[in-house]
């Protein structure tokens, strides 16, 4: 772990960061298992390996601060405070899910914790995040919004449009690029000319790069930027170098043609954010191995209980199908129609 030294006063924070990272990993392991055992409808994208990014950032946020998330969104959702039960229910299309099963993995949102939602359009939330920051400014609130997106999303023109406006209007938004080296089956250097950081800087946006596997480094940087954004010194850009352990989605199993097993092994064994942070916690005397094992076991139990609950939970009633199309119309469709 980084050269950071633990501060006594922060012990709870450290443990919560560890817990949140471990919870994300546990969530993803279960989600993957649900897919592999054909219990989950559709596909989903695993966040495993990138936990320090979501946790390092979200731990620097208040509940009233907002985030926008991506197709690879479980990590952001957990990190911003969501519960396993409602999340697994959502992934399984159940009524008790965060979105009553209507959104699923790619649209999971948790507005109670300020998560404005995952998005299945790459880059699709860049405007939303910027607009959320616009609201804060217009209404005189000091909320900050973090916009998560991948390296691949930097190719979308929308980003440049909203960066321009965010910079012109000094909006309290932080663009957080999770550079995991790939977009789908393509390496970042094949799809990104020049420098991603320079692109943000060209709009006059202060930009940073940080090791996305080092939760303390991510958190420390974010704390600073969030504080400054609250004072109107935003926007900011942060590029976080990270890695996804799984394929692009759970079904992307044979991936030798675009990246080597050695590369995956190296990241997993030598740069895992959870292993690194665990060692640091022990080293600094914040927790011992047994305490951490106990925490992990508790998390595993929680996850399993939530999965079991979700598997048994009920689907939304078929009458829900035309509810929530409009806010003010209970059922959008006339019943007598011919389908």
């Amino acid at each position: 772990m980084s050269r950071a030294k633990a501060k006594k006063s922060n012990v709870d924070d450290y443990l919560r960061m560890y817990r949140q990272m471990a919870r994300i990993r546990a969530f993803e392991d279960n989600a993957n298992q649900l897919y592999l055992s054909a219990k989950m409808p559709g596909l989903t994208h695993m966040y495993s390996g990138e936990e320090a990014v979501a946790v390092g950032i979200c731990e620097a946020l208040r509940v009233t601060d907002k985030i926008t998330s991506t197709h690879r969104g479980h990590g952001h959702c957990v990190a911003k405070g969501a519960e396993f039960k409602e999340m697994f229910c959502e992934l399984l299309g159940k009524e008790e899910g965060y979105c009553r099963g209507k959104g699923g993995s790619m649209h999971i949102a948790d507005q109670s914790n300020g998560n404005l939602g995952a998005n299945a359009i790459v880059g699709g939330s860049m405007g939303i995040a910027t607009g959320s920051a616009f609201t804060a400014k217009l209404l005189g609130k000091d909320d900050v919004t973090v916009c998560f997106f991948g390296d691949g999303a930097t190719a979308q023109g929308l980003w440049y449009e909203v960066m321009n406006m965010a910079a012109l209007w000094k909006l309290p938004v932080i663009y957080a690029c999770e550079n995991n080296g790939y977009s789908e089956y393509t390496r970042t250097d094949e799809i990104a000319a020049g420098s991603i950081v320079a692109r943000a800087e060209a709009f006059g946006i202060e930009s940073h790069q940080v090791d996305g596997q080092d939760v303390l480094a991510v958190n420390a940087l974010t704390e600073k930027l969030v504080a400054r954004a609250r004072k109107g010194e935003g926007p900011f850009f942060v590029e976080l170098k990270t890695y996804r352990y799984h394929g692009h989605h759970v079904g992307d199993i044979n991936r030798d043609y675009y990246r080597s097993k050695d590369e995956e092994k190296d990241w997993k064994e030598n740069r895992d954010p959870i292993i690194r942070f665990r060692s640091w916690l022990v080293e600094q005397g914040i927790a011992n191995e047994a305490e951490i094992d106990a925490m992990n076991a508790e998390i595993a139990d929680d996850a399993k209980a939530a999965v079991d609950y979700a598997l048994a939970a009920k689907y939304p009633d078929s009458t829900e199908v035309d509810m929530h199309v409009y806010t003010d119309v209970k059922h959008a469709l006339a019943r007598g129609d011919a389908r």
Partner: protein
Amino acid sequence: MREITLSQAVNEALAEEMRRDETVFIIGEDVAEAGTPFKVLSGLVEEFGTARVVDTPIAEPGFMGIAVGAAMTGTRPVVDLMFGDFIYLIMDQLCNQAAKTHYMSGGKLSVPLVLRTNLGATRRSAAQHSQSLHALVAHIPGLKVALPSSAYEAKGLMKTAIRDDNPVVIFEDKLMYQDKAPVPEEEYLIPFGEANVLREGSDITLIGTSSMVQVCQKAAEILGSEGISAEVIDPRTIVPLDEETLLASARKTSRVIVVDEGHQSFGVTGEIASRINEKAFYHLDAPVLRMGAMDVPVPFSPALEDITVPTPESVVENARRLVHGEMIHAA
């Protein structure tokens, strides 16, 4: 009653709603000092300041996205899209994001925004500044679509739109901005989904939207002078659509023409005609006739442009044929 232009009516609606609700703001290109190229917003920035009348760079997808996010978090943006033709640029933010957020979140998030834009040809603005693209938006569940046909309508529908908690798209007819109509001084709103019967008649129903309401009115006058009694109906909003009023009229007159300025094929006329055919079939003496804009890009040349859209004369001609039983095609 005083008469004001459609442009002033929209301006008043915005000013009144911005006074009433400080979360309402306007965002778009040259909306502030310039008051838009059509000068519809003149004076608003002076009253509400640049924080609420927000000039943007030329970045339609970007400011539309910003509006979606702003709407999701507690404000009521009115997005100004200078020409309806630019709607193609913002379709993703409008249709994948704004339209679906409430549903995808199971009702937890909502997107109370208004997209103000326009439609209408015959301004010699050529193919990329003359389209009437409301059908595209009407096809997407989650959006409401209003088509004001006069200054009075424009004000009432705009105020309703701003108070609606859903994304609403309003298409103003850009040729009507300077047209005056009586508009009361007192506040009023026009509910969505309630068609307006502008003229009662018994021989034929003319359903017109937006710019085509006037065309239908003029056609009805001419027809009246020929002894044909035409009912003229303006649906006001096509989503939601007031089927009841349209069906009642169709059942009464048994002959219907639907007139709309969007391209005819795969557009608004097909939907309205189909609903009437489906639900009033056994009352109809003739098929519902559709008159949309020609299925061609809008040509620049005045010699060509004018013939691409329905006119009072062409509506009259078709109405005559319908009433006189001449519409039995090759059929």
